[in-house]
C-alpha cells in the first residue's frame, strides 16, 4: 500500500544555484499528485529529493525534512534503502540495454541478492501485467533485449521494473513526454490503476495530463511552490494570480 509524504522546509542546491526554496507540502497516500510548472522551475529536482537521487550529483546539496510513511528519509536511513521503497520512472525510457526483458524487470531484486527463481518468475509476470506489457512481451521474455522494444513499451518496462521491487511510492518525471499519444494514454491508464496500490507523484509539462490523472496538483515557479491544491481547484479557480497566468497559457 502507498504511504503519504510530508515535506518540510525543503531546500536544494546545484552548486551555488538555489534550485528549491522552502518547499512545504503534504502528498496524500494512494493518490496521484501532479507537479506542473515551466522548465527549470525545480519540479524535477523536487521529486529527485524524494528518493535521494538529487545527492547522486556531486555538486548537489539538500536541507530540510522529508518523511515518507513514518521514515525520515534524510535522517533514519541510507539512500539505498529509501530508493527501494520509492521507485522512479524517468523522462526517457532507460531499460538496461544488455539485459533481457525478464532481467530488466527483476534487475532491482537480483542486484539486491534475491535469487529464488520461482518467486522471481511470479514477480516478473505480475509486474509486467500491472504495467500492461505482459501480453506484448510474454513470448520473448528471455530472448529479447529491453532495448529492442518500442519507446512506449520501454517506458512500461521501466514502470514494471520499478514495480518489481514493491515500492510504496512511485515518482514519475515526465514519464510520457518522449512518447506518442497512444503510448501516452496507455501510461495514463496505468497511473489510474496503479494509484489504488501506490502513492504516485508525477511531474508533467502537459496540463491536460495533470488534469486527467491527478487528484492533487502543485504549481512550481522559480524554485518555489506557488500553490498546492486539488487539481480541480487549480485548474478552475486558482488562488494565486501566477498559477492562473500559467494555466491559461500567458507564460511558460
Amino acid at each position: 500500500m502507498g504511504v503519504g509524504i510530508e515535506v518540510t522546509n525543503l531546500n536544494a542546491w546545484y552548486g551555488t544555484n538555489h534550485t528549491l526554496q522552502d518547499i512545504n507540502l503534504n502528498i496524500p497516500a494512494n493518490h496521484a499528485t501532479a507537479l506542473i510548472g515551466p522548465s527549470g522551475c525545480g519540479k524535477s529536482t523536487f521529486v529527485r529529493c524524494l528518493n535521494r537521487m538529487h545527492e547522486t550529483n556531486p555538486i548537489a546539496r539538500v536541507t530540510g525534512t522529508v518523511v515518507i510513511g513514518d521514515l525520515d528519509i534524510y535522517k533514519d536511513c541510507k539512500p539505498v534503502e529509501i530508493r527501494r521503497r520509492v521507485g522512479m520512472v524517468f523522462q526517457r525510457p532507460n531499460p538496461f540495454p544488455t539485459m533481457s526483458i525478464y532481467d530488466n524487470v527483476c534487475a532491482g531484486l537480483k542486484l539486491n541478492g534475491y535469487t529464488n527463481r520461482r518467486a522471481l518468475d511470479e514477480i516478473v509476470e505480475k509486474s509486467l501485467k500491472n504495467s500492461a506489457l505482459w501480453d506484448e512481451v510474454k513470448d520473448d521474455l528471455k530472448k529479447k533485449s529491453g532495448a529492442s522494444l518500442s519507446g512506449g513499451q520501454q517506458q512500461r518496462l521501466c514502470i514494471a521494473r520499478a514495480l518489481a521491487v514493491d515500492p510504496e511510492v512511485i515518482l514519475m518525471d515526465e514519464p510520457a513526454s518522449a512518447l506518442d499519444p497512444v503510448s501516452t494514454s496507455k501510461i495514463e491508464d496505468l497511473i489510474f490503476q496503479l494509484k489504488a496500490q501506490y502513492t504516485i507523484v508525477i511531474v508533467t509539462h502537459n496540463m491536460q495530463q495533470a488534469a486527467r490523472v491527478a487528484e492533487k496538483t502543485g504549481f512550481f515557479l522559480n524554485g518555489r511552490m506557488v500553490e498546492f491544491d486539488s487539481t480541480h481547484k487549480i485548474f478552475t479557480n486558482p488562488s494565486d494570480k501566477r498559477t492562473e497566468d500559467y494555466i491559461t497559457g500567458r507564460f511558460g
Partner: protein
Amino acid sequence: MGGYPRSPRVDALRKTLLKLQEHNFRSRVRTVTDGAATGLAILSTVLVVAPLVAIFIYLIYKGASSLSWAFFTDIPKPVGEAGGGMANAIAGSAMLLGLGSLIGVPIGISGGIFLAEYGRGTKLANAVRFTADVLNGVPSIVMGIAVYSLIVVPQGHFSAFSGGVALGIMMVPTVCRTTEEMLLMVPNAVREAALALGVPNWRSVLAITVKTASPGIITGCMLAFARVAGETAPLIFTAFGNVGWSSRLDEPIAALPLQIYVYAISPYDEWHRLAWAGALVLIVLIVMAVSLVRYVTSRGVLKGAS
C-alpha cells in the same frame, strides 16, 4: 527565341525552364560532390587495409613453404641440421601472454573503472590518466630495461615471470584508457536507473555499467593483447629466450618474437625461412586468439541489444 511572339505565358514558361535548368545543374553538382566524397572514403579504406593485406600475402609467400607439422611440434635444431620448429616458442609466447594478460587486464580494467566511475574530475584521476598516457608512450625497450633492473637483477636470473610482468605493464595503459572511454559512453540514464532501484553503487558499477560497456572493454583488451603479442624488445632482458622446453616461471623461456628476431639476424638461410614461418604463425595465432575471444563473448548477446 526572337522569332517567337512574346506573351506572358511564354515568358512564364521560359522562366520555369530556366529554373529547371538551374535545378538540374545544382543537382548535378550535388551528385558529383557526393560521388567524390564516397570515392575518397573508399580510397582511404583501401589505403588503410592495403598494408595489412600486403604484409599478410608476403608472409604467406615467404613463410608458408617452411611450415610443416614439425614446426609446431619440434624445438629448434642446432645450426646445420635441417628441420626443427618453434614449438617451445609458441608455448612460451602463450605462457608469457597469459601471464601478461593476468597482470595487465585486471589492473587496467580496475584503473579504467576508477577513472570513469569514482575519480571523475579529481586530482588523483588526472594524475592516473596522465601516467597511463605517458606509460603508453614509453618505448618498449625501456620497459624491458626497467623490469630487468626491478626483477631480473634482484633475482639474479632471467625468467618467464619477469617477461610476463613486462608485457603486463605494457598492457595496462591501453586497457585502462579504453575501459575509461567505454564506460564514459554508457549513458548516465542507465546508471541512474540502477541507483533508483536501490542498487548499491559498487554493484551498479559492476553489474550494470561495466556490463553495458563490456564489448568495448573487451576490444580494448584484445588491442592491448595483440600489441604486446608481437613485442620483442621488452623480452630481450627479461624472458631472454630458450632453445629448449621450459614451463617454469623462474627460468628463461622462449617466445615467438624473440625466436623470429634471433633467426632473422642470423646468417643462415634455413633460419631465415623459419623466421618467416614464425612471423606468419605469430600473426595467425594472434588473429585466432582475438577471434576466439570475440566469438566466446558475443554468444548470448540478446536480440536488439545495443
